[in-house]
C-alpha cells in the first residue's frame, strides 16, 4: 500500500472532480478519503488515495495529473502521504 495525497486548487467550475476521479479510476488508483473546502473563493479539494501496485508509475501519474490540471485551469498535485504524517503526527 502506498498512500498518496492529491490536492486540487483552482477556480471552482463544473466537472473538476469528475475529471480527476475518472483519471484515477482509469489508472487503478483507489480513493480512500475525500474532503473539500472553498478557500478565499477557490476550490480546494484533497484526496487520500492508494497507489497500490502502481507506485512505480508515480512519476507518470504526477506528470499526467499536472497536464490534466492545466487543461481545466486548476493546479493538481500529488505527494506521498508520509510528508504530512511526519509533520503532523507523533
Amino acid at each position, binding site marked *: 500500500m502506498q498512500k498518496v495525497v492529491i490536492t486540487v486548487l483552482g477556480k471552482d467550475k463544473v466537472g473538476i472532480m469528475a475529471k480527476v476521479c475518472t483519471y484515477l479510476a482509469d489508472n487503478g488508483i483507489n480513493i480512500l478519503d475525500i474532503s473539500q473546502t472553498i478557500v478565499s473563493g477557490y476550490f480546494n479539494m484533497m484526496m487520500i488515495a492508494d497507489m497500490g501496485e502502481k507506485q512505480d508509475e508515480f512519476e507518470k501519474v504526477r506528470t499526467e495529473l499536472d497536464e490534466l490540471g492545466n487543461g481545466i485551469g486548476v493546479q493538481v498535485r500529488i505527494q506521498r502521504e508520509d510528508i504530512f504524517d511526519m*509533520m503532523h503526527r507523533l
Partner: protein
Amino acid sequence: MINISEVNETNEMIQHENLDVRTITMGISLFDCIDSSLENTKKNIYDKICRKAGRLVETGEHISKSYGIPVVNKRISVTPIATVGSSACKSEEDYVELAKTLDKAAENVGVNLIGGYSAMLAKGNTDREIVFLNSIPEALKVTARVCSSVNVGSSRTGINMDAVRRMGDIVIDTARASYGTESLGAAKLVVFCNAPDDNPFMAGAFHGITEGESVINVGVSGPGVVKKALESARGADFEFLCETIKKTAFKITRVGQLVAREAAQMLGVPFGIVDLSLAPTPAIGDSVADILKEIGLEHPGAPGTTAALALLNDQVKKGGVMASSYVGGLSGAFIPVSEDQGMIDAVEAGALTLEKLEAMTCVCSVGLDMIAIPGDTSAETVAGIIADEMAIGMINNKTTAVRLIPAIGMKVGDKLNFGGLFGYAPVMPVNSFACDRFVNRKGRIPAPIHSFKN
C-alpha cells in the same frame, strides 16, 4: 488520517513560505585514496567520488518530486584534503591539483559545491598543512565548486594562534586572487573554532575524521515558515512566542528527517544527521532578520537583538531535538549578512555593526558570516577579528566561524555583488586600531579551565 487543513498547512509552507530541503550532502571518506603518488591520489579521489555520489543528484530530484518539496542543493563533503594529500603533495601546486580533481568530480556528478578542502589545526600544524594553507588562494581561484575551511581552535585544545595569524593573510590573499569576480573566493573560505564533523552546509562542510565510509546529512531550512507562524504571536507573551517557534521547528525538522532517511535508503548509505538551521537566502520572505523584526525589533542590531536571537536559537534547537534523534551539524539560526535581505537593510540603515554581529554570534549557531570589509584592511586586523570569534567559540563550547570578504579596491559604503545564493554585501567599517603586537605573538592560547573534564 491526515485532514485537509494539515495538508494545506504543509503545502502553504512549501509554496508560499520557502520551506525547503536546503541540502542533501553526502559525506565521503577519502582515507583509502591516500597514496604517495600524486597521480594515483588524484585518480583514487576522482573515481571514489564519482562511484559513491553518481546517483546523488538523481536521488535528490526523485525525492523532491515524490514529496512535492524543493531539494535545493545536492552537495558533497570529503575528508579534509590537507590530511588526504599529506603524502602525495609536496608543494602548493600539488594541493591545487587535488582541488582541481575535486572540482572535476563535482562537475561530473552534477553537484554545485564540494566541501572539504580543509585542514584541522586546532592545536598545531604539520609542515604539509602549512603548504596546504598557502595553496588555498590559488585553489579557490582556479576552481568553481570547491569550498575550503580551516579549524584553528577548540574548547578542548585552545586556539592555534600561529594558524589564526596565517589565516589573516590567507583570507586577504584569497580575496586578492579572485579580484575581478567580486572576491568570491573568500566567500568559499571559512575559519572555524569547534568545527562539527557532520555539517552539511557550505562553505564549511567537510567529512570529519570521526565519520564512517560515507554518510547522508540533510539540512532543512525555513525562516519564512517561522516568520509566518510568529505573525500569530504578535503581542503575545514569551511563553507563547517560544512555544510557536518550537512547534514550527519541530515540523520543519520532521521533514528533514523523512528526506534524510529516504535519501540514505535509496543510496544505500547510512543516515547521519539532520541539521535544522534557519538559513536565509536573498529571496524575499526567506530571512532570519525578518524573524527578529517579527519578534519585535525595528532592525537587527537594535538593543534587544542578542536576547531575541538567543531565544530564537534555543527554541529552534528544542523543537528540533524532539523531531529527530540525530540532530547535528550547526543547527540553529544563521546570520550571514549578504545572504539575508533583512540584514543588508539593517547594515544600510546603520542599525547593524560588526561589533553587534560579534555579540550576536555568542548566542547563535555560527559566526561572522559573509561580511564584506574594506579592501585595505590589514592581515593583522583580519587575524584579530578571527581570534576574537575563535575565543567566543572556545570559551562557550560552541562552534564559531568567520567568513569575511575583503572587498579589494573598495571602501565602506561600496557594494560587493556576488549574485545567486551568495547575495550582495555592503562593505562594513572595521575598527582600525592596531592589534599587531597581539596577533604576531607565537604559539597558542591554552585550553580554557572548563576543558579539564577527565
